[in-house]
């Protein structure tokens, strides 16, 4: 695709802009993303940590609360028990007083349920199996009647508990049982008795009696379910009393309704699934506000410490040991936290159990709340982020639009001078070299325009110059042509048509003016002079030197030959040519003079190629024997040797220049003298001169082929036909 500069510039600037925008946007998006992710993970971590902290705190606080609750409930129960214990102590002291000082009391006859009905809050007495067996002695009867005074204490005491099914009672060492019961569910009916209850009941065999005797102090005894008391269990407290001698005379006791305690235990339970319990010294459950397999009540004398669930057994141990604590336990396969506190006065322990899931649920709630807050924060952050991203995208788009407009303008403004420039250049190209580009942008384009202007001026000058130079060259060429024409014109072309001698010469000039020339002239009626020469070098100077040489030789031959001989002619010509020849031009010359009557041929060879002589009698060509005289021009005052031969009829001499023997073919190989002599021996030398020269020229051309002619080629033939 080919785009113009404006488009390319636009694309370039746009690309650069967009790239940097993209890079910037990418960078900021990356930064925002990093920040967002950091914030998010920070928020999540914070949320988790906070939630965990909250959970821990809540759990801790719940546990703390549970522990405190357990303690306060234990204290409350202990306090209640303390009241009962006080009542029992008062009862015990009163009985001890009565037993120690029987004489201070009048006998009081108590109701015998065997003979009279017993109504609500009335004191009755049964005699037990011993007296039934042994009979009632007067001493015992009196003793029992004195004990009857206790009625005055029992009945007010029992009234305190009259709301509940309860009783206060005394068992004597004789096995008698004195009791003041209250039965508020049927207060106006007499208390029903079985016969066994009246006749066979022996208090000494009862646990409360044995406990007090063995403890020799007030003691609480375990609860037991009384048939008449419904779901509520009861418990009791008993204490021994003494006779004058300090011996145990019996045991006082009371069965207390445990509703208050039970209620308080029930109230203590935390949550719908929580429950509370009281455990005795033997690890047995006394109260429990809920049925439980692992924590079943004490009827079966089940020791919780032996529970296979270790956590529960361990907790039970700690409770039995009178410790405070909160522990995780598993009860009936469910996780609980048990908070327990001791009731030191009686060696029991109070515990409240809360399902772990309730605590965890509370903690989880707070954790969820916290996480929800964090989520809210994160989503707010996300919204902010989206808003900022949207804003950034809007800004980027706006900037891109601006960039596009700006770069479009910029490239158009940048390209405008180029248009001006190209229009101007087109005008110049159409030939208006006077057109001047006027661009003033102060930048490279102005520089370019300046260069174009300079180029236009240069071009104009150059064209003017070229015109001048061409004209000059034309002139020189013309001059050369003229020189060449003169050279050619100086060569004689009117060959004499005679019977005694035939003459023919040709000169094929090379491209550049060469220095070859030939000449022939009659010195007198019988002497014919012939010359072939070659001036050193080429061009105009060679041509000029040639003209001089030819003229000088001609002049001296005409004036001196008959008097001084040919050698002197050549010497004189040499001296003349040496004068003012600082350029050391020289010319090789073969000059000969033929006596047309005798056939004698006198010749001087000054450095020229030896001519070919054809002897008609032998029909054979040879190189003419030539003395090696020095060339003409460089050295004056030197002697030249002349030689002579005699031509017979039909003999022929062939003169030439080195343009023949040194003619080059395309392989730079010379024609060579050997080939010349061989050719001349093979061709018909008796042919007319025109044909002979043409044949030789043909052989040379055959050798040269397509190569360019490097030198003038001059050939000169003379045939002597004799004087008839």
């Amino acid at each position, binding site marked *: 695709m080919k785009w113009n500069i404006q488009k390319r510039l636009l694309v370039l600037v746009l690309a650069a802009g967009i790239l940097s925008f993209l890079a910037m946007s990418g960078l900021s998006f990356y930064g925002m993303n990093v920040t967002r992710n950091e914030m998010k993970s920070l928020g999540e971590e914070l949320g988790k940590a906070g939630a965990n902290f909250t959970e821990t705190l809540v759990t801790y606080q719940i546990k703390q609360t549970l522990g405190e609750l357990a303690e306060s409930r234990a204290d409350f129960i202990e306090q209640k028990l303390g009241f009962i214990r006080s009542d029992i102590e008062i009862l015990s002291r009163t009985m001890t007083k009565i037993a120690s000082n029987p004489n201070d009391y009048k006998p009081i006859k108590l109701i015998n349920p065997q003979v009279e009905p017993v109504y609500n809050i009335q004191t009755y007495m049964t005699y037990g199996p011993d007296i039934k067996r042994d009979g009632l002695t007067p001493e015992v009867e009196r003793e029992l009647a004195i004990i009857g005074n206790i009625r005055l204490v029992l009945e007010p005491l029992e009234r305190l508990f009259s709301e509940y099914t309860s009783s206060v009672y005394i068992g004597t060492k004789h096995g008698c049982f004195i009791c003041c019961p209250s039965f508020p569910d049927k207060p106006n009916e007499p208390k029903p008795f079985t016969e066994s209850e009246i006749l066979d009941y022996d208090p000494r065999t009862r646990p409360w009696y044995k406990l007090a005797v063995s403890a020799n102090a007030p003691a609480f005894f375990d609860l037991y379910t009384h048939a008449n008391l419904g779901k509520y269990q009861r418990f009791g407290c008993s204490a021994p009393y003494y006779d004058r001698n300090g011996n145990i005379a019996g045991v006082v006791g009371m069965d207390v309704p445990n509703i208050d305690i039970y209620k308080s235990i029930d109230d203590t339970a935390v949550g719908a699934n929580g429950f509370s319990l009281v455990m005795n010294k033997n690890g047995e459950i006394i109260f429990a506000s809920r049925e439980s397999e692992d924590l079943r009540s004490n009827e079966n004398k089940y020791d919780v410490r032996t529970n296979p669930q270790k956590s529960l057994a361990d907790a039970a141990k700690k409770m039995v040991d009178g410790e405070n604590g909160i522990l995780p336990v598993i009860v009936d396969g469910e996780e609980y936290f048990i908070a327990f506190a001791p009731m030191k006065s009686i060696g029991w322990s109070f515990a409240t159990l809360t399902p772990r899931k309730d605590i965890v649920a509370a903690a989880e709630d707070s954790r969820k709340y916290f996480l929800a807050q964090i989520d809210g924060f994160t989503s707010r952050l996300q919204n902010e982020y989206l808003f900022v991203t949207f804003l950034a995208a809007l800004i980027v788009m706006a900037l891109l639009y601006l960039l596009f407009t700006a770069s479009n303008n910029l490239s158009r403004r940048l390209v405008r001078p180029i248009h001006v420039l190209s229009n101007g250049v087109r005008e110049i190209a159409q030939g208006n070299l006077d057109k001047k580009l006027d661009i003033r942008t102060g930048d490279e384009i102005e520089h370019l325009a300046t260069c174009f202007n300079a180029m236009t001026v240069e071009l104009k000058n150059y064209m003017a110059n070229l015109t001048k130079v061409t004209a000059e060259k034309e002139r020189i060429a013309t001059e050369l042509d003229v020189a060449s024409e003169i050279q050619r014109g100086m060569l004689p072309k009117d060959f004499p048509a005679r019977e005694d001698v035939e003459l023919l010469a040709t000169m094929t000039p090379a491209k550049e003016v060469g220095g070859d020339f030939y000449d022939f002239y009659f010195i007198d009626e019988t002497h014919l002079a012939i010359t072939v020469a070659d001036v050193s070098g080429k061009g105009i100077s060679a041509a000029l030197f040639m003209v001089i040489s030819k003229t000088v030789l001609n002049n001296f031959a005409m004036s001196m030959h008959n008097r001084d001989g040919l050698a002197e002619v050549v010497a004189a010509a040499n001296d003349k040519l040496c004068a003012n020849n600082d350029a050391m031009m020289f010319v090789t010359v073969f000059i000969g003079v033929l006596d047309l009557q005798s056939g004698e041929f006198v010749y001087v060879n000054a450095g020229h190629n030896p001519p070919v002589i054809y002897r008609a009698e032998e029909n054979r060509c040879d190189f003419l024997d030539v003395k*090696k005289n020095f060339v003409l021009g460089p050295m004056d005052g030197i002697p030249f040797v002349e030689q002579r031969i005699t031509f017979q009829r039909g003999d022929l001499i062939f003169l030439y220049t080195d343009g023949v023997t040194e003619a080059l073919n395309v392989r730079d190989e010379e024609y060579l003298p050997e080939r010349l002599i061989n050719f001349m021996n093979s061709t018909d030398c008796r042919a007319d001169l025109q044909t002979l020269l043409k044949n030789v020229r043909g052989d040379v051309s055959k050798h040269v082929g397509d190569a360019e002619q490097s030198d003038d080629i001059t050939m000169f033939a003379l045939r002597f036909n004799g004087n008839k």
Partner: protein
Amino acid sequence: MEIQKELNGNALTIKVIGRLDAASAPELSKELTSALDGVTDLTFDFAELKYIASAGLRVLLVAQKRMNKQGSMKLVHVSEAVMEVLDMTGFANLMTIA
């Protein structure tokens, strides 16, 4: 044509390689104009000179003329073809050829 020069003190040896014709002669001429200053012993080594034209001979002449004034000049290793030309033109008698 190629020209190799070797100056050893006042002795200069010029080796001319190839064809010394009308086209290349001016180059040698120009070379000699400056190279001959202070030279007393000039040697032309023509071992690899294949051809010499009249223009080349003229350069030798100029050199000979100059060396006649400031020392001596000789030609060495002249090939048969070149020798023929020198012989024919009479240059052989005029110059020292070793």
